[in-house]
Structures are given as structure tokens and as C-alpha cells.
């Protein structure tokens, strides 16, 4: 099935490429299991493109991060092709909604998603430094580490965000590749299971949890850089001297404040794509912080980001009738 989908992707990209500036997609990385972003400008590169559960990156950030593209195409500029999973498509919706992109600027290759692999989890079961090959057979991940062949249920090694995913099918697209996927979650409860678990602990334990998780943070800002909606570039207040919100101190309070800034700046905008958590080299559940805010937005204001290009993010507006939201 993956093979057919891949062929279909190649065919569709081949047809569209002459009208496009480039196509951003996933390709095989130098190791045998991960994928890496590829920027296809030439028909010869099309064969590099792949799809499936290894394609974990959200590529939409490349549309707005340096070297940034113009939101509105210049006269005669060709659109840019981009491959998106369900979650990635919500980032596109949010970027269009906030006018960082125009809809015409992108040609969207939508890919229904059955979940992506979190290699940190696989790494706990298999020695990743020796992997000879990794393939997917139906719902099983087959990893050959030159000693043995491990057969791991995909469902056990998915990225955390995938278990609560309600929108595996792209919400905005020009073409679809493959059959629609069934959502793993259909309710607020199952989507925010991890938030509820932490919320069920006493206050002191929550503080203890975050103090110890964030203690590992090295403030590399990979999470911010990976976020498609963290668009302030060199104006980010985390690094600005004026105003000077953060110092170079390495204490936990600084790390807390950094994560508060990151989370609050995404409040009502975060689509929960999980890029921050995927990018984190210290295995910190960074997305979980934003999930709580997403839950607040959803429960109290009935708003989920990245679903509607016409909607106004809830913290950029108000209702005179609000009392306790």
C-alpha cells in the first residue's frame, strides 16, 4: 500500500513540478530509517520523495523560517509545493489565517496519516546505531539491527501526539495521496489524556514534575525553532536584550520562564503538531505545556487552532459578555 502511495506521490509531483518553484517533501535520510526534508526543484530528485510513518517532520516551518519566502507571490512567482500530514495541514491553516502565507502561494499534497514513529521510543527497544534496515509491514515496524530482526507494533512506538490525533486527514489540500485514515481520537477526553493525568496530581507534584523535566532543558531553543508558528525570527523576546526577559543564567527559573513565554505566545494559536517535542534533544514533553493551553481554549472558548482560515484566534479578540471564560 505504501508502495502504491509513493508511486502516486511521484506521479503527482512530476505532473505538477513544471508549474511549481519547488516541492518540499520527505526523503530517505543517510541512516536507513529516518527521513529528512528534501527540496525538489528538478525532476531527477522526485524519486527521493517518500511518505509513511517515518515522515515525522512538519515541513510547513520551511515556508516561513529563514530564508523566508514572501507571503504573497511576486508577479509571476510560481507556487511552492508542500507535502503535509493531517497535523501539518493545521499549521498551514494557521499560517494562512495569520497572513504569513496566501493560499495561492502553496500547492498542497495532502497525505492521510496513520501515525508517525518516535525513534526515541524505538531506541529504548533497539540499538539504533546498528540498524541495517527498517520497514513497515502493515501495522508492524520491522527493524534489523544486524543481530536480530525486531518486530515492534507500530502502535507502541508512535509519537505522543499521534495517540490523541483527531485530524489525521489534511484539512486543506489540492490533491490527496492514498486512502483517508481513521482518527485515533474523536473526543476532547482522549485527545488530552496526558494533560488530565498530570492535572490529577497534587499541585506540589506538578511543580516537582516540571522542575525536574525542565531541569534537563539546555535552552538550545530547538523547540522554538522547529515551531512553524514561532515566527518572530530575530525579534524573539527570548533572545532580545531590549526588552530583556531572560538572562544567560542556567537556573531552572530561567527555563520555566522560557517555556512560559513559548507557551503563552502560542496560546490560542498552537495546533498541537508536536514539532517542539520532536525537536527536543533532551526528551522533554514540551508539547504537553501547550496541550494544556489548547485544552483551555477548547473547553472554555470552543476554539481549536488550525481548523478554519477565517477564524480569529481567541486571544486576539474578546466578547464583552465574557466573565469567567
Amino acid at each position, binding site marked *: 500500500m505504501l508502495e502504491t502511495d509513493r508511486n502516486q506521490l511521484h506521479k503527482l509531483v512530476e505532473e505538477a513540478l513544471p508549474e511549481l518553484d519547488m516541492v518540499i517533501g520527505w526523503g530517505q535520510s543517510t541512516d536507513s530509517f529516518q527521513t529528512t526534508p528534501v527540496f525538489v526543484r528538478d525532476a531527477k530528485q522526485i524519486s527521493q520523495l517518500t511518505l509513511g510513518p517515518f515522515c515525522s517532520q512538519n515541513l510547513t516551518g520551511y515556508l516561513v523560517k529563514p530564508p523566508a519566502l514572501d507571503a504573497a507571490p511576486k508577479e509571476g512567482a510560481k507556487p511552492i509545493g508542500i507535502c503535509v500530514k493531517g497535523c501539518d495541514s493545521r499549521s498551514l491553516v494557521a499560517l494562512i489565517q495569520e497572513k504569513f502565507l496566501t493560499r495561492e502561494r502553496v500547492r498542497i499534497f495532502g497525505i492521510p496519516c496513520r501515525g508517525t514513529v518516535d525513534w526515541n521510543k524505538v531506541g529504548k527497544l533497539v540499538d539504533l546505531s546498528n540498524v541495517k534496515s527498517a520497514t513497515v509491514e502493515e501495522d508492524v515496524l520491522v527493524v534489523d539491527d544486524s543481530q536480530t530482526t525486531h518486530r515492534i507494533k507500530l502502535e507502541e512506538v508512535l509519537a505522543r501526539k499521534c495517540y490523541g490525533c483527531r485530524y489525521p486527514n489534511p484539512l486543506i489540500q489540492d490533491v490527496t495521496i492514498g486512502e483517508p485514515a481513521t482518527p485515533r481520537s474523536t473526543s476532547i477526553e482522549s485527545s488530552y489524556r496526558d494533560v488530565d493525568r*498530570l492535572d490529577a496530581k497534587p499541585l506540589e507534584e506538578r511543580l516537582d514534575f516540571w522542575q525536574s523535566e525542565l531541569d534537563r532543558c539546555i535552552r538550545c531553543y530547538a523547540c522554538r525553532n522547529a515551531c512553524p508558528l514561532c515566527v518572530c525570527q530575530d525579534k524573539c523576546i527570548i533572545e532580545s536584550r531590549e526588552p530583556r526577559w531572560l538572562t544567560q543564567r542556567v537556573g531552572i527559573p530561567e527555563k*520555566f520562564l522560557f517555556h512560559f513565554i513559548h507557551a503563552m505566545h502560542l496560546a490560542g494559536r498552537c495546533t498541537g503538531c508536536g514539532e517542539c517535542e520532536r525537536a527536543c534533544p533532551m526528551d522533554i514533553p514540551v508539547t504537553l505545556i501547550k496541550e494544556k493551553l489548547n485544552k483551555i481554549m477548547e473547553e472554555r472558548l470552543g476554539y481549536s487552532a488550525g481548523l478554519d482560515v477565517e477564524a480569529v484566534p481567541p486571544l486576539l479578540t474578546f466578547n464583552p459578555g465574557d466573565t469567567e471564560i
Partner: protein
Amino acid sequence: MTDEGPRSIAPADGTAADTQGIKIVGFLCNWCSYGGADTAGVCRFKQPTDLRVVRIPCTGRMDPLFIAKSLIYGVDGVLVSGCHPRDCHYAVGNFYARRRMEAFKAFLPFMGIDTRRFKYTWVSASEGQQWQKVVTEFSEQIHELGPNPGVRRQTGENSKVSTGLR
């Protein structure tokens, strides 16, 4: 705020704060609550001494991160006050502020920070008495809670909390 954190804030007149060393930061809007606090002072209403006032142009200027930074670094309480809804000098600043502060208030405990240390309220420039009541009550509440340890500074302790994250 200096690098030393808010602990270094001392009353401007050089007097010691109170015995517990409780420090409360108040963010008051220029047009209503700052005036209200002034009215309370002019009327010589007795007020607690542990409030340090930061004047902001409007509660619409109130970034929830001001509250976050204060509480993370160990300020004992944060009180935000502005014009009553529909009475904002800029018409809608406090409407924006209300949403942001409500969302923030719901978020704080998730990170392990006690929301009782944060309060927002509306006090107009003529409500000196109301201001006295609000500050006194909030100050009492903070005294009951005691000093805020903030987020711990030393690193290296591992948490015993298991959350069962997937």
C-alpha cells in the same frame, strides 16, 4: 527587575517591609485603579504595606508573562487591577486583558504554581474604599499562604512523579 530577582525590591522609603517579608506586586492601570489607590491614600484609608505598585497604561498592556516572571522568581502575590468592564479608558483594553488573564489563571496550576497567588480585579478611580478592601483581602490571603518559594534554583534532583506519559 534586576538579575537578583524581585527579592531585591525594597519599599522606596527605606522602611522594612513587614515581618514575614511578604512582597506583592500590583499592576494598576493608569486611568482607574491607580487613581483608586491614590484616592484611598488621599482619604487616609489604612492599607497593607506589602504592595509594590507598577503603573501600566491600561490592563490591555498586561502581559500574563509579567505575572509568570514574578511568580517564578518568588514574588509572593500578584494583583492586577483595571477599569471596570465597559469603563476602559481605551474602550476595550480590559476585555482583552480579561480573556488573557482567565486563560493564564487556568494554566498556572498545570505548571505547579498556586493560582491563589494571583488575582485580578476592577477598581475605578473614585472607589478608594473598594481599593482598600481589595488590597487588604488579597494581602491577608497571601499572608495566609506564606512566602512563595518560586521555582527552585538548584538543579539535579530527579522527580519521583510518574505521569505515565505515552
